[in-house]
């Protein structure tokens, strides 16, 4: 018997398994996406259809909706694994826990974050987003949604063992999402005014790097508490 699996292979084994399960369970992919679209549609109904008003608030609406959709979809990140004992096996596997956690978050982001980025331009059309802002919208979503997934996963890991997760989860992670929201929306605003926004992107990128390095440890430590 030969233990010849490298860390990279273990990472992709877990990634592939999670993708396979999600594909056999399609609701998990489409429900957050539908939620995202629905929330965005509600705003014009609430605020009124004037294009000038919508143009002004479009970046904020899209990003707040993305925040909420990301949070809702994350709730299921560790739930099934916790319920069937896979999470314990993951904690006890000889592979580094932060690597396993990263694979799970990546799988989750591929399944929920990427569709959200792809559908965002469509919603931007509905909200009359400034024509110059599309690039910034896509760029901030591409850099920002992984940060949301990583930070959110900490909250999910802390609450996975609890019966009442939902509302508590929002209280735990929404405050942590504030910086991403601020820099992403102002990048889009700046782009709308034809101002440079690479500085904003750099800051969101820095947040991404920071959370890529630190969040897996926090998620791992939280999972150890939750499975206790």
């Amino acid at each position, binding site marked *: 018997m030969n233990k010849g699996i490298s860390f990279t292979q273990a990472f992709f084994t877990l990634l592939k398994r999670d993708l396979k399960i999600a594909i056999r369970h399609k609701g998990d992919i489409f429900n957050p996406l539908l939620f995202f679209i629905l929330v965005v549609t509600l705003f014009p109904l609430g605020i009124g259809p004037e294009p000038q008003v919508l143009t002004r608030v479009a970046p904020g609406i899209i990003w707040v909706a993305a925040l909420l959709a990301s949070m809702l979809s994350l709730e299921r990140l560790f739930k099934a694994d916790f319920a069937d004992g896979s999470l314990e096996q993951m904690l006890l596997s000889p592979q580094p826990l932060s690597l396993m956690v990263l694979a799970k978050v990546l799988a989750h982001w591929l399944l929920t974050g990427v569709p959200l980025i792809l559908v965002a331009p469509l919603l931007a059309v509905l909200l009359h987003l400034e024509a110059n802002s599309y690039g910034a919208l896509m760029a901030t979503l591409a850099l920002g949604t992984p940060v949301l997934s990583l930070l959110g996963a900490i909250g999910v890991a*802390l609450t996975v063992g609890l019966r009442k997760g939902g509302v508590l989860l929002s*209280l735990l992670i929404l*405050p942590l999402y504030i910086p991403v929201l601020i820099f992403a929306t*102002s990048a889009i605003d700046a782009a709308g005014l034809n101002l440079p926004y690479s500085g904003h992107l750099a800051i969101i990128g820095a947040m991404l790097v920071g959370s890529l390095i630190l969040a897996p440890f926090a998620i791992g430590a939280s999972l150890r*508490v*939750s499975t206790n």
Partner: protein
Amino acid sequence: MWKWLHSYADPQKAYKLSGTLLPWFATLAFLFIGVGSIWGLLFAPVDYQQGDSYRIIFIHVPAASMSMSAYMAMATSAFIGLVWQIKSADWAAAAIAPIGAVVTFIALITGAAWGKPMWGTWWVWDARLTSELVLLFLYLGVISLYASFEDKVLAARAAGILAIVGVINIPIIKYSVEWWNSLHQPATIKITEKSSMAPEMLYPLLINILGFGLMIGAITLIRFRAEILARNGMRPWVRELAKAEGVK
């Protein structure tokens, strides 16, 4: 250093130590807050611009400055608990959280009460007000996470991790809110911190800040002792203590 710390990891010793410290903290807190408040509210000179309404700073500023310090204390305690696996430190962190939340709330309320006569509105999306509000949310997150676990030993560990994550994020949140504020803030409203404050105003303020710190320390000690007793109810030393006090 760590050997010394570890000897207080034992709940019984931590209970005794906090019992010795408590009267000192409590007495000094009463003294400082008493002197600072009476001096500030009755004897400090009237501000030539704001009249008597400025006197709320003797409550507002200490509360605001201690709200952040209490979070730091909570996170430090949680960090010690996480790294050296000391349960007493986790409990101390859990004991600080509600006090910090109340202090933050006081800072927000007194800020609003001050804002009404000064700016004519209860709330402005000022950078400091906004980050104080976010700080309150962070505290509430820690408190409700702690409340959600049935097993309080686990609850304290989970809340501790959240406190540490929060403390890493506080500077980022603060910076981003300030930056956001400088973009959106209309120039008409501005909190002008006077560059030089008359010493007759400054001294009572400093005394009150110190007093607030001591008061938070004292209440934390009371809560910490209660926490130790609640977590160790089945230990022989707690039972003996209860017997000596004549409970049951």
